[in-house]
């Protein structure tokens, strides 16, 4: 019976209790559903803090292990194996941190089928937490695929006009990548005799050519999820059609699963292939950084703009991870968190204006700072954080990534980091253009003249994000300290 009380198991599956409670509530009791989901996600967040409390930051090993033999037919060694280390702890915290905020953001935005919405949302949390904690490839795959289903419905039921198209596209793209990953997982499990990740890493010894193929198979799944250029085509559609909270989670957590996959599986399992692939990944990442930044500049839909900016930001993350040195990888991990916070906040902000104006067309706004001073100021701070202003979180991540990539032997050329740094300029261009079109200038549209500024609930959603924007920007040491030993351990193989 201790099984369910093991910290990580409890953390992962706790939202199911909320789902269970929701099942017993009448569909028309909407606020009861909202409160149940909120309280559940808050308790889950509390649990994750409890996990953080037990986490020993000085060690780079897997900790708080929760492990049981699970399926052992036909000589397969599949385990139920959850554990956390410095690579994943921040992402777990990010997940549980963003959940209550997203749920709060649906308070007035989702009015239909609230019960179903909340159930899907909590299920999604189970899947995401599981992805970050699973240390068995098979278990990981199950969680990985499991996240698809709630997200599919979240987009498909509560989305915008072209939601079905977007949901199907999202589903099929991710599915297509996952299939290859499944094959690679099965190959590893069958030929290496275990599905457990630490076991596989210890065993090692996969020949170079096969490493490359396996690397590519895993990369297919992860690169689509990240998404790396040129596999990003599903992202703008999914973001534009998804409800606000869905976008927040999609950008904040789901995309991180891709980058995390590279970090957790590709790098330690296939070190030789990773080194060989590093310049190519870096090249795609740099193209993504510039491409995303330039394309966002031309967008007229705010949400689409933010979606393309994600392509750019995740390019930075990938560049950092494949720098294969401490600065790059730690910066990459931190940048995942930063992107979750900043872009999450941006989507929340876009959602707030959308609730008021029911449009996201940049041209429909103008001079909003005058009408909604608080909203304007907060958007400015978040936008600055997103474009990497020093003193805010985005800068710390981008700087360390670029510093790492610049001196990286794996990438092998200054040009990548140098070109990526151009992305910093372009980020300022599109973010400021967005800010200018929405908030500056005179209020020349009648619809905008009487907009209400943020209410207390919305402020409550944004304040925690702002706290982290400043905290990480000014004093990122605690965050780096959490991951440093694990990254060091990871890099021993290179």
């Amino acid at each position, binding site marked *: 019976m201790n099984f369910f009380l093991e910290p990580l198991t409890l953390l992962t599956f706790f939202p199911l209790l909320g789902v269970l409670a929701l099942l017993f509530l009448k569909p028309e009791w909407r606020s009861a559903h909202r409160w149940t989901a909120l309280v559940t996600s808050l308790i889950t967040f509390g649990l994750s803090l409890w996990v953080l409390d037990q986490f020993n930051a000085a060690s780079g090993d897997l900790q708080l292990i929760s492990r049981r033999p699970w399926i052992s037919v036909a000589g397969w060694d599949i385990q139920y194996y959850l554990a956390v280390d410095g690579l994943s702890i921040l992402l777990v915290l990010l997940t549980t941190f963003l959940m209550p905020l997203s749920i709060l953001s649906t308070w007035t935005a989702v009015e239909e089928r609230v019960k179903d919405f909340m159930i899907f949302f909590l299920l999604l949390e189970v899947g995401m937490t599981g992805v970050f904690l699973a240390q068995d490839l098979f278990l990981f795959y199950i969680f990985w695929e499991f996240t698809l289903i709630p997200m599919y419905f979240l987009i498909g039921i509560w989305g915008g006009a072209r939601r*079905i*198209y977007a949901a*199907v*596209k999202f589903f*099929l793209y991710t599915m297509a990548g996952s299939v290859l990953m499944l094959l690679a997982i099965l190959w590893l499990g069958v030929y290496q005799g275990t599905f457990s990740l630490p076991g596989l890493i210890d065993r090692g010894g996969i020949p170079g050519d096969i490493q490359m193929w396996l690397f590519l198979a895993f990369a297919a799944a992860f690169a689509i999820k990240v998404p790396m250029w*040129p596999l990003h*085509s599903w992202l*703008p*559609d999914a973001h534009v059609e998804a409800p606000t909270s869905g976008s927040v989670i999609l950008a904040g957590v789901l995309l991180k699963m891709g980058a995390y996959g590279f970090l957790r599986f590709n790098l330690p399992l296939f070190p030789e292939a990773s080194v060989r692939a590093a310049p190519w990944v870096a090249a795609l990442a740099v193209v993504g950084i510039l*491409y995303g930044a*330039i*394309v966002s*500049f*031309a*967008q007229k839909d705010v949400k689409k703009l933010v979606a393309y900016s994600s392509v750019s930001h995740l390019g930075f993350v990938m560049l950092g991870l494949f720098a294969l*040195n*401490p*600065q790059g990888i*730690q*910066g990459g991990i931190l940048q995942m968190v930063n992107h979750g916070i900043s872009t999450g906040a941006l989507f929340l902000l876009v959602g707030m204006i959308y609730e008021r104006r029911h449009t996201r067309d940049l041209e429909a706004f*103008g*001079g909003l*700072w*005058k009408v909604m001073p608080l909203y304007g100021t907060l958007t400015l701070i978040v936008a*600055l954080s997103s474009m990497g*202003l*020093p*003193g805010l979180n985005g*800068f*710390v991540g981008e*700087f*360390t990534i*670029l*510093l790492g990539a*610049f*001196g990286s032997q794996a990438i092998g050329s*200054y040009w990548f*980091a*140098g070109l990526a*740094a*151009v992305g*910093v*300029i372009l980020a*300022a*261009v599109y973010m*400021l*253009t967005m800010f*200018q079109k929405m*908030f*500056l*200038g*005179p*209020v*020349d549209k009648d619809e905008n003249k009487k907009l209400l500024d943020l209410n207390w609930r919305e402020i409550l959603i944004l304040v925690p994000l702002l706290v982290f924007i400043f905290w990480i920007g000014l*004093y*990122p*040491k605690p965050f*780096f300290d959490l991951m*440093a030993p694990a990254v060091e351990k990871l890099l021993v193989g290179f």
Partner: protein
Amino acid sequence: MLFSEAMSTGFFNLAPLVVLFPGIGLLFNMVFGGRLPEKVVGWVASLAVGAAFVISILLAVSLSAIHGHAEIVSVTEWMSIGSLHLDWAFRVDTLSVAMMLMVSGVGTLIHIYAIGYMHEDVRFKGDPTRFQRFFVFMNLFIAMMMILVSGDNYLMLFVGWEGVGLCSFLLIGFWYDLDILGRPSLENAKAANKAFIANRIGDFGFLIASFLIFTYLGSLQFDLVFAEVEHVAQPVILTITLFMLLGVVGKSAQIPLFVWLPDAMAGPTPVSALIHAATMVTAGVYLVARSAPLYGTVPAAQEIVALIGAVTALFAATIAVAQYDIKRVLAYSTISQLGFMVAAVGMGAYAAGMFHLVMHAFFKALLFLSAGSVILGIERGYHAMSHGKKGHGFHHTDDEVFNPNDMRNMGGLKDRMPVTFWVYLAGTLALAGIPPFAGFWSKDEILLDASLHYPVVYWLLTAAAFMTAFYMGRQVWLVFFGKSRHEAAEKAEESPRIITAPLVILAGLSVLGGVLNLPHFHTLGHWLEYTLGELRISEFSWLMAGQATLIALFAIFLAWLLYGRREQAANEPDALKKLLGPAFVVFEHMYWIDEGYAAVFINRYKDLARFLAEVIDGRFWHDWLHDSVLAAGFGKLARFLADPVDLGLIDGIANGLADLTQWVASRLRRFQNGFVRSYALSVLLGVVLILGYLLFR
């Protein structure tokens, strides 16, 4: 004695306060400012900066007590990854303290001035709620500038570097819903964006330079970096310094990134004085001085820096002679003077460059603030004039847009605004380099050094100095002498005490500032030597000084010939225009640089973005590759598998799959009669068959 003990040890620990005080001020005003009267908000902000000034003095005192030895005050670790170690650490040495004193001293005066100025400005522009916001931004700026000058590593410097850029953005766009004439427009906001993005381009250079520094010199902390310089190959240092130069030209508005500074005049006048004349734009000069050990090793880089500075100085001066907007003249003058400073530090004359930096802060802040006073006076006059006719506020008259900045609308203000006139004159003489005003000493030192080491630079700078004296003369005559060319100028009124008091102090500094670094004494030079090592100090030459003075006087005389001897009528073309013809038009339109940039870079970037977004990402990637090839291809496959004959209308994967499912369903339908029992029968049939298969296979 306790005090002397504290002087040598205790005061250094106060260094973080130079950032903290303005920070407290801004937080206080942010939280409570909305509920407090304007006076309180303004004085709290001013006091916060004043407190930073006091701290800076204490630091300077302590520093001289230990003979200028650099102190590092570390607050906390910032980040530490692998070999990268960065602290939030304050560096107190003679260079940084000189900057701190200048920033907080001039800053305090400008804050006090702004209490009076903004009080009127927000009323003229019709939104008094922004008073509070102004002082929040100003305090933020001071805090950022302090971080910039006091940081102990390149990254902390960069935090301040971009931070002041942000404040500049916020303050240029302070009237984000108006244009420079107060009409509803996006113009000011565009100017703000332009400044930020031009600065970002410079910051890109800074970033690359810091990556190179870290990669080759192994650290970002100043002392460690400078200690490594000798061990690194020259080409690397050259690359570093050139990328750093990109940062310098961005921040200090040199060719080719100077275009943002003239537009930055959209900000309220105290902003122009503080940020775009005295402090922020000099950050580039400070950076070169700070990186002296890097530049010192590569003469090629020094030469490039010096040349860029000198060319900018002349180039901007030519534009300044043909401007009508009182603040725009000063803006180009600032670019030009920054060129002087950059040239000086580029030549290695750090003492001269820093001397001119401080002097320029005094007299240019003075000139901007006085210009602000002039503008306010004109606005008051216009207000009084239009009050009788209709409504109030100058932007309500639609038939003719009145520009209170336009020198063609001024004239004869000498008598209407005497205090402003006298302080403006002091600033002008200082800028023109007439002895014994402050600008004379500093400019002379730069010219002297150039004449000895870089003749080309010397000639460029001398030409620029000539132009400087000319356009300042032109300005004084156009604004203060002659007859008023507009009714508003006739009715102009002198500004209140709170505005003129800081002006008088600054005027005093502009007159007497030269004592800081008089020939033979070189107080500032020796003070900086503690930090920068043995400096090259050229001895005073009567010949050079006399030559420079004569040139300046001649230029002023020329200005009098054109503008003073005979009065300009209201609608008459500029006197110089008659003389120069087409060349004047070129200057007037600033060589069409803005239009050129727009045509060559900005519009091309927009085209590229649109092309990528619509054609590549939209039509090719999204519509063609995904929808037509992938989705439709899959749809066709599904259709083919489903029923090659039945070519229904299938669109995309969703429909393809749906059709497939429907087809299968229709085949299976005949087995479906809806009776539970017959379903159950098929189950049993299945059981029997499977069991049979297992038995008899």
